[in-house]
């Protein structure tokens, strides 16, 4: 594995390998006073975020630090990006400084792919080996989120193959949904999408998922339900009449959560808009695994860094 750009680059064995590594890293750190492994000593990991983020950026930074990598954060605000430097120049500059890994989040879909292409072309002349990790590109993909969701589901359900997972809400703008659909399908799950028709992307019929129309009808047969955030910042039009109407049709209220089987898990990638896509009482209930998702996120990102950086360069 040279870069992590899309979950569609992962076959079932590679994805399972990453999840296993995450489990083992969790084990290795369990109950320790000193949460530090020497594995990535001397490696430099740069997070380059052109969009706001709390959990993803911090999670990658902690993952790097717990494995002794030197982590550096670059944000669009306060860097040369605000002077008009292009993504290409910024990233080649960071690569020339000796970054072993650049973790990039960008509002444009495909940004990480473009970056990896430039870096790979540049490698011939400079000989640097920089891995690119996609930490969210526009409405395209968010591979580590899908991996941490898979880790959480595997943990709580004992496996993923054959389980039925519902993904509910703003599928159109959600890179989390897209990455999850493809990764969960690769791992053998049956994925059901439930969304207002205006919030389903064109071409969803090509996805390895079934589109359900009514949430209440799907809930009793789900092993897990993933509630998506309504991405107001990406909505430049009216996709549904009102927040209240959205909540009535697609929000996970306490009454609705009661339709789920007892073993079912509730996920949310965060940040949550409580009361709109998920009721506070559901978000704080025992079936919710939202905080487990966050802590699994660190271990999954450690696993990604381990697979990209620990071994000999490819």
């Amino acid at each position, binding site marked *: 594995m040279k870069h992590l750009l899309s979950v569609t680059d992962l076959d079932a064995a590679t994805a399972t*390998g990453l999840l*296993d590594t995450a489990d083992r890293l969790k084990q*290795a750190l*369990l109950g320790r006073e000193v949460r530090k492994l020497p*594995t990535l000593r001397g490696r430099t990991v740069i997070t380059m975020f052109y969009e706001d983020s709390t959990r993803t950026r911090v999670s990658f930074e902690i993952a790097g630090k717990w*494995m002794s990598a030197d982590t550096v954060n670059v944000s669009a605000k306060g860097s040369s990006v605000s002077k008009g430097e292009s993504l290409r120049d910024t990233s080649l500059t960071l690569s020339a400084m000796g970054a072993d890994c650049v973790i990039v989040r960008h509002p444009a879909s495909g940004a990480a792919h473009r970056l990896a292409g430039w870096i790979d072309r540049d490698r011939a002349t400079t000989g640097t080996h920089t891995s690119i990790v996609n930490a969210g590109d526009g409405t395209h993909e968010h591979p580590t989120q899908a991996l941490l969701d898979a880790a959480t589901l595997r943990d709580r359900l004992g496996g993923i193959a054959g389980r039925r997972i519902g993904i509910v809400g703003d599928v159109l703008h959600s890179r989390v949904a897209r990455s999850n659909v493809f990764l969960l399908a690769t791992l053998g799950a049956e994925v059901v999408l439930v969304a207002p028709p205006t919030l389903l992307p064109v071409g969803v019929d090509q996805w390895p998922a079934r589109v359900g129309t009514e949430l209440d009808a799907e809930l009793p047969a789900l092993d897990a339900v993933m509630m998506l955030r309504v991405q107001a910042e990406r909505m430049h039009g009216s996709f549904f009449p009102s927040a209240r109407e959205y909540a009535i049709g697609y929000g996970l209220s306490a009454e609705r959560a009661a339709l789920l089987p007892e073993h079912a898990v509730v996920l949310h990638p965060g940040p949550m808009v409580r009361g709109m896509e998920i009721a506070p009482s559901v978000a704080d209930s025992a079936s919710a695994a939202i905080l487990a998702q966050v802590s699994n996120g660190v271990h999954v990102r450690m696993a990604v860094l381990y697979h990209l950086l*620990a*071994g000999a360069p490819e």
Partner: protein
Amino acid sequence: MADDRRGDPAGATSPARELLSAADVTRTIARIAHQIIEKTAGASGVVLIGIPTRGAVLAQRLADAIAEFEGSAPPVGSVDPTLYRDDLRRRPARALEDTAVPDGGLDDALVVLVDDVLMSGRTVRAALDALSDHGRPRAVQLAVLVDRGHRELPIRADDVGKNVPTARDEQILVLLSEIDGSDGVRLRRSGEDG
């Protein structure tokens, strides 16, 4: 160095020279268990930590043997040294193995580190570093089933099942029934394929 026969399941069936039979392996484990009991005054305060995968199996066998002779088994765990290895960058990233420290932890325990084959000592060095991140044992000892020489670090075992002089390009195959279906230790020359 246990690595010499990992990822080589074909070795289990190849016509290699037998160093220890199944009965020898059982006797050897019993002898090491006795040595541990003797040196530690009844194995009190002992924690057995195996190096995965076969070292972890051996640690469990040693615990069973100690239980048979002394009436109670010491706590058993495993520590994967992979994250502490000094040769990570020389090969593609490897899969990690189980780490399971017993509930009581390692602080002030007499830890007996257990592995199947001792060669360069680099795995043991990595395991010692891993151990010290999990706690501060009173002392650490090393028990191995086979010592094949070729040390690259100043490390020696306290309890050795069998010393085997080997050439560098020979392979030691340790077979344990939990993993390989039967017990035994074999020596295979280089170029001798199954």
